[in-house]
């Protein structure tokens, strides 16, 4: 509509001056309405943005954009307060505003580990409109501009040397002070800020790149390291490290998540060993076992509830022999020190009657009629990193608050736990036969036995019902099928085919 000029006016018969006036009038009207149209487009966009915001965003971010919407008191972390113009995920320099594209990306992709969902099901127009709308909440957008993005070219391919360089840089740049020597968020500055001074800053557990707010790919990590996270102790390193150094660091940080492999299954396979089960965690039998990763959630059914648990993932491996079954459980916990005598703990839960099948006890530690058996390990009174300790109990639970000392058969269990650099490693070994007691073998092999897990972090005020737990999974003690069984099955299948074929031929003849 813009760009109309006098030349496109057709020339009527008659007075040229009147013609000129007419063309001027028409073109100026059209240009005005074009300008008004642009203004109208903006108004439409802001109306649309406002509409989208009021339909989708206001409940968390609030009518005034200050992060105090009606749902905000239920959220941890809290929703962003837009009024101060401080945004974490940006491609621009430290303490700068984000670009529109940065905001659009967060709206589209969401923020893992928070209540901010991805809004990819909204149309792109809607998303862009709401980005324009939310910029109004802070006066910074009116007075400042975001500035140039930080340079991010030249991403190198990963290699062993690059990872080694990244590891050295992780140490020399002091990343470990907040993130911990092995990246589990247990660094001394994090522990001090959080426990001594009660500041709300916890450095990310770098072994969980699925929880990185800005994304867990190498490019995302590079961006975060370069631009920092405004409003948090994570500063920007673009003036402290070269581009090449930051790429090496990004590759290294991404590699820290390698252990957290999704296993996706519901069956914890326990492998049979000949001879004794190794008590040494570094034995080959243990290191060869694949980790089964299990996600835990806070218990929110019975009071007191746990809305923001520390432990959200366990890794489990299992071995067994005729006499014993063993579980090696590992999880990330930034501190091992008990707080107000609340200890770190983990528990494995079985159906007390060891029946397999689909009728399982209530997953929240059973009921009066169908109890569960708990093998619980608790840390000791004080924490000594890298030294094994703790106590193990076998308990019968008739519900979340009804525990009794285990009189059940499977009460002979022992174990210990070691804390190292932000990770607990607990080995629990229980007897499958109780000496001197007649009866069937517990943990029958070849069957699917219900099993569930729960964990507590004492320094997060977790105790009793305030627990992080999983639903029922299955434990399967693997049985080796003999080779000839496969041949038999193959032979049976072939003969069945032959029989079917000859029967079919006979039928056709008829």
């Amino acid at each position, binding site marked *: 509509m813009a760009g109309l000029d006098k030349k496109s006016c057709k020339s009527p018969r008659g007075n040229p001056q009147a013609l000129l006036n007419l063309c001027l009038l028409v073109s100026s009207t059209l240009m005005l309405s074009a300008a008004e149209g642009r203004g109208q487009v903006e108004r439409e966009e802001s109306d649309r943005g406002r509409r989208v915001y009021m339909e989708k965003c206001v409940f968390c971010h609030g009518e005034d954009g200050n992060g105090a919407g009606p749902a905000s008191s239920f959220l941890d972390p809290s929703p962003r307060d837009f009024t101060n113009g401080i945004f974490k995920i940006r491609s621009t320099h430290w303490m700068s505003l984000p670009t529109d594209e940065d905001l659009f990306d967060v709206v589209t992709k969401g923020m893992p580990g928070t209540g901010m969902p991805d809004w990819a099901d909204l149309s792109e127009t809607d998303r862009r409109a709401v980005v324009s709308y939310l910029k109004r909440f802070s006066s910074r957008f009116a007075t400042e501009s975001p500035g140039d993005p930080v340079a991010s070219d030249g991403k190198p391919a990963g290699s062993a040397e690059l990872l080694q360089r990244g590891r050295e840089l992780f140490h020399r740049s002091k990343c470990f002070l907040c993130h911990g020597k092995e990246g589990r968020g247990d660094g*001394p500055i994090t522990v001090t800020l959080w426990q001594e001074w009660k500041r709300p800053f916890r450095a990310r557990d770098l072994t969980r790149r699925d929880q990185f707010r800005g994304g867990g790919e190498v490019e995302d990590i590079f961006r975060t390291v370069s631009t920092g996270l405004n409003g948090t102790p994570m500063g920007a390193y673009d003036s402290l490290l070269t581009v090449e150094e930051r790429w090496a660091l990004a590759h290294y940080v991404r590699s820290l998540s390698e252990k957290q492999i999704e296993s996706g299954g519901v069956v914890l396979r326990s492998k049979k060993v000949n001879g004794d089960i190794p008590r040494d965690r570094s034995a080959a039998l243990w290191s060869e076992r694949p980790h089964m990763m299990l996600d835990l959630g806070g218990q929110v059914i019975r009071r007191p509830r746990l809305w923001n648990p520390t432990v959200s993932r366990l890794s489990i491996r299992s071995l067994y022999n005729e006499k014993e079954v063993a579980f090696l459980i590992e999880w990330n916990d930034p501190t091992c020190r008990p707080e107000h005598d609340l200890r770190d703990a983990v528990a494995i839960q079985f159906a007390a009657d060891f029946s397999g099948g689909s009728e399982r006890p209530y997953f929240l530690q059973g009921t009066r009629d169908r109890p569960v058996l708990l093998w619980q390990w608790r840390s000791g009174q004080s924490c000594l990193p890298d030294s094994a300790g703790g106590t193990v109990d076998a308990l019968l639970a008739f519900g979340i608050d009804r525990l009794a000392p285990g009189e059940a058969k499977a009460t002979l269990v022992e174990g210990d736990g070691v804390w190292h650099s932000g990770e607990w490693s607990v080995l629990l070994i229980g007897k499958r036969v109780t000496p001197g007691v007649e009866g069937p073998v517990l943990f029958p092999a070849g069957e699917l036995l219900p099993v569930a897990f729960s964990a507590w972090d004492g320094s997060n005020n977790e105790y009793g019902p305030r627990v992080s737990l999983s639903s029922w999974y299955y434990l399967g003690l693997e049985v080796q099928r003999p080779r000839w069984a496969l041949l038999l099955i193959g032979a049976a299948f072939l003969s069945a085919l032959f029989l079917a074929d000859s029967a079919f031929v006979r039928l056709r003849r008829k």
Partner: protein
Amino acid sequence: MYGRSGFSPGEERVTRNASGNPMRHGGDFSPRRTRLFAGVVAVVLLMPALLLLGWAEAATPVLHAAVAELRDPYERHKNGPPLTHVTHKVRLDWLAKWLASPRSHDRRARMPDLDLEDDEIQAVIAYLLAIGGETPPPVEWEPVLLKSSDDLTDRDWGSIDSLYDNGSRTWRRSRCTICHGGQENEGFVNLRVGVNLGNVQAKVRRDWLYRWIRNPKEYFPNTLMPTYRFSDTEVRGLVEYLLRDPGFLLDFDVVEQGDTPRSDFADPELAATGKRVIVLSRCVLCHDIEGIDEILPPPPPVQPPTGEFARLAEEIKCLTCHEIAGKGGNYAPRLTIAGSKLKKNWILSFVQAPDVIRPLLQQMPRFNLSADEAAVVVAFVGEHLRSEVVDGISIQFDPLDAVRIREGEAIFRQRGCISCHMVGATGGGVGPNLSRVGDRLTPEHMVYHLRDPQTANAFSVEPNYELSDTEIRNLVHFLARKSTGKP
């Protein structure tokens, strides 16, 4: 209410069954009774709304501006002291050891171990020296005081004895042990306030210690330590006491003479490396350091207080130990309703010369307040720290009513109060000494306390004897019998 058939009030409410006989419906309601019933229901439904309105009014007391502007000393943006002039404060060899491992110096140190290499530590010290600037003008000392302990002769000792004794007495009056402990002892306030003074001789410089004790806020504006109104002699006495008393030695190691800066500390490259180490180690999260950019956004600016009492509280740091209206520490009694609780004259003399009320550990320090400052305290407390509930209690107190006093004494003996409280020469030490409690507490507050001790004082272990009002009145007369009755 209208029954199954849906009758409205006033209608004929008789239905007939198949045989034509009238049937009774449950609940006979005549029109008048229906309206009455409806009226009652309406009032019942409205009552919560009315109560809520009244409740809302009572439940949100508006804090007077004079109380609202009091600042909680524990709410600090940065909890560590500023490091810009730290090289004027501490000896360099101590600083190197501290940076290598804070916990090896003080078990309770709240600074984390930063895993610094030796060369990084030296670089950091070089930077801190560079920003430290000129040392302030030196303090004048008697020459004998500047000799090291090993070199002092008996005559020298004699000449500094009176100064040392003065310091020892000042230390005791000022109750420094409440926060600082001494040697291996922990301080008591919130268990974490107050630096461990063990081996302080190896740590701080004499001149700095003098300036600190005289006015702590000059070095560390947000310190929790009060600014006592010490005389110059008292300050010098304390310095001598701290630097010479063997009670402040954590171990018997010889103090190293490592305080001279190394020659390469002046190297600007070393200082630049040190700056980089400080930036990477995020020291600025807890410490203000010149030349290091902030990481966290600055907090909203806070106006300095305007009221006289608020300004005095900033100096004396009352809220380090006491709580007023939800702000402050919980070591000492809450002062939120102290105006209704305590008598003015008592407050006036107590803040200037505190005596023992409760067991020894909790005695208030002597801050050497002037009479004017004490008057400011009394005025503020009397006007703003009041309780409507306590003020509203009426007790016709008559210090000469012998009957009530006798009855009160009987109650006191019967209930065994003497097992926890002292009256006269005998009694227990769990609760305060009640010999002259009438001079300290108002009769109204004594009633308030006796009605429910835990409401009056959350930390109280006193049982609630559920005394009747008459018994309470008599008991108060007994306890306050020696008071002059003046407010």
